[in-house]
């Protein structure tokens, strides 16, 4: 039996193609990209070795720092907001709507499947100030706020990006966290209720600690996704006004393809990868410490 289940030839036939494609198109380019970071040029002009110039350039480049700062600000704020909103929604599904939450869950979830480009173009129109007044500005007008040019200032643009991604993703996180909440045994919540825990206290002492693992994986997933933000920004603001909403991904894209600077582009990509790794490890470590403390 072990001869069949451990048949080397069969393993090669079944695993080989997937591993080959994966290695050639993912692993080899990753290593290849590392070689680009110590070179200058692009495939058309050719490459020249320039040591660590790209790295010193990166750390002295104000545009790169702006991009890092924007990426971090966006990732942290959006992660907190989308996990928080998702968690509140999931608590609402479980404790207020109970069995009747199916339809609302489905409706709030749906924007996740829409193409980002389409949603971004729609949000451009929703937040439009001129020549037509979009729904958001019309609504604010009723409240007495004057017509706001959302895409004209860095701060307003930033919040439109956040609003759009929140609109798209909160239903997704709600369903993700809902699955974790449903897994909490009913008896546990019932016995806590009998012991006199209710409302906020019940959530804080019983529900929150028990849903910590799924909250954690949501946060890691969210950080990993938001640090790589590209589609949203490209389609909604295209990095503007000026470079105010340019994340590392878009800066890398422009450097490489608009300016043909592959060496520096790879360096930015590597920095982004390191940033993603650091955050994931950091979140893992910080929660492990918490668990040992308990």
């Amino acid at each position, binding site marked *: 039996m072990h001869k069949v289940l451990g048949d080397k030839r069969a393993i090669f036939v079944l695993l080989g193609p997937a591993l080959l494609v994966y290695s050639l198109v993912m692993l080899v380019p990753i290593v290849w990209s590392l070689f680009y970071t110590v070179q200058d040029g692009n495939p058309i002009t050719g490459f020249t070795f320039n040591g660590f110039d790209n790295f010193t350039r990166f750390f002295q480049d104000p545009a790169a720092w702006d991009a890092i700062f924007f990426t971090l600000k966006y990732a942290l704020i959006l992660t907190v907001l989308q996990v928080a909103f998702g968690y509140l929604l999931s608590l609402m599904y479980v404790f207020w709507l109970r069995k009747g939450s199916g339809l609302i869950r489905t409706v709030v979830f749906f924007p996740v499947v*829409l193409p980002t480009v389409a949603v971004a173009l729609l949000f451009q129109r929703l937040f439009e100030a001129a020549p037509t007044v979009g729904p958001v500005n019309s609504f604010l007008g009723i409240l007495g706020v004057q017509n706001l040019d959302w895409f004209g200032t860095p701060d307003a643009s930033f919040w439109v990006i956040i609003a759009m991604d929140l609109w798209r993703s909160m239903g997704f996180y709600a369903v993700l966290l809902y699955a974790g909440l449903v897994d909490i045994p009913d008896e546990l919540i019932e016995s806590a209720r009998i012991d006199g825990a209710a409302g906020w206290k019940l959530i804080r002492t019983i529900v929150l600690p028990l849903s910590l693992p799924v909250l954690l994986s949501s946060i890691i997933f969210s950080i990993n996704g938001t640090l790589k933000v590209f589609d949203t920004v490209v389609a909604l603001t295209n990095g503007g006004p000026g470079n105010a909403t340019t994340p590392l991904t878009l800066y890398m894209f422009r450097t490489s393809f608009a300016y043909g600077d592959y060496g520096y582009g790879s360096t930015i990509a590597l920095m982004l990868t390191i940033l993603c790794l650091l955050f994931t490890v950091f979140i893992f470590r910080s929660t492990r410490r918490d668990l040992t403390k308990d």
Partner: protein
Amino acid sequence: MSATTAIVTDSALPVRRDVDPKRRGPKDFFRRLPIRLLIAILLIIEIYPIVWMFLGSFKTQTEFLNEPFWALPQSWGVVNYVEVFTTGEFGKYIVNSVIAVFPSLAIILILGTAAGFALEVMVWKGRGTVLLLFLAGIMVPAQMILLPLFTIYFRTSLTGSLWPLVITYVALGMPLTVFMMATFFRSVPREIFEASTLDGASIFRSFFSIGLPLVKNALFTIGLVQFFFLWNDLLIALTFTNSSDLRTIQVGLLNFTGEYGAVQYGPTFAAISVNVLGTLLIYLFLNQQVMKGLTAGSVKG
């Protein structure tokens, strides 16, 4: 003292009895009002933009400029949609997307399932390491591989066709598919495969006649998840489509507004509607599977 209490209870009782059957109604209603209001606002925020988009796709430029945003379209003509498919060339973009996405999807599912089977059901040294190798790919940003790939496609003259998209899509879809398939095969009792092997089935027969039918539903779910990822992809499509003839529907939509000077509202709204329609229809019919699949695809941290 007792008299007053008597009076109070006397006057209070009939009133209470009068309202009793309905008492729960209004009180319950007011207690639940905040949450109902909250849900109503939530639903409006989620649904209204889409309704507004579909209505807008029938409006004319003057309607957009002169009417408030809540006005309904004056006619239901499809002029804007005609514009999208003629000037906008959306038909070509949709065909490009279909050509790039569906073959990729098929290859991803076949290779990923076979690899998941080899990694989870079969017994050999080093399978844990290979699975980890696949997993590592989930975290690395795609930007890391774009430039070398661009060089490769450029040198092999694949640039100028849809091949770069298909190849890149297959590789990018591999980690998640292999990982999810391995997870699904793990939940199948090993005894089934051991029994089939004892009965003399070859490993390929075990894979095709026993493994595949068992994970048929999982295959559908992963296919759905990967479809959304590929269909909605912008980064890869933007990088490797160098001519307007190769644009996928996402790249086409991104460039659509740029093709006019001022914003043409009606056609823009129609283009967004066409773009959204596909995924929206799938979600309408398969929402439960989509929700299950997309959330399952993320719980890997």
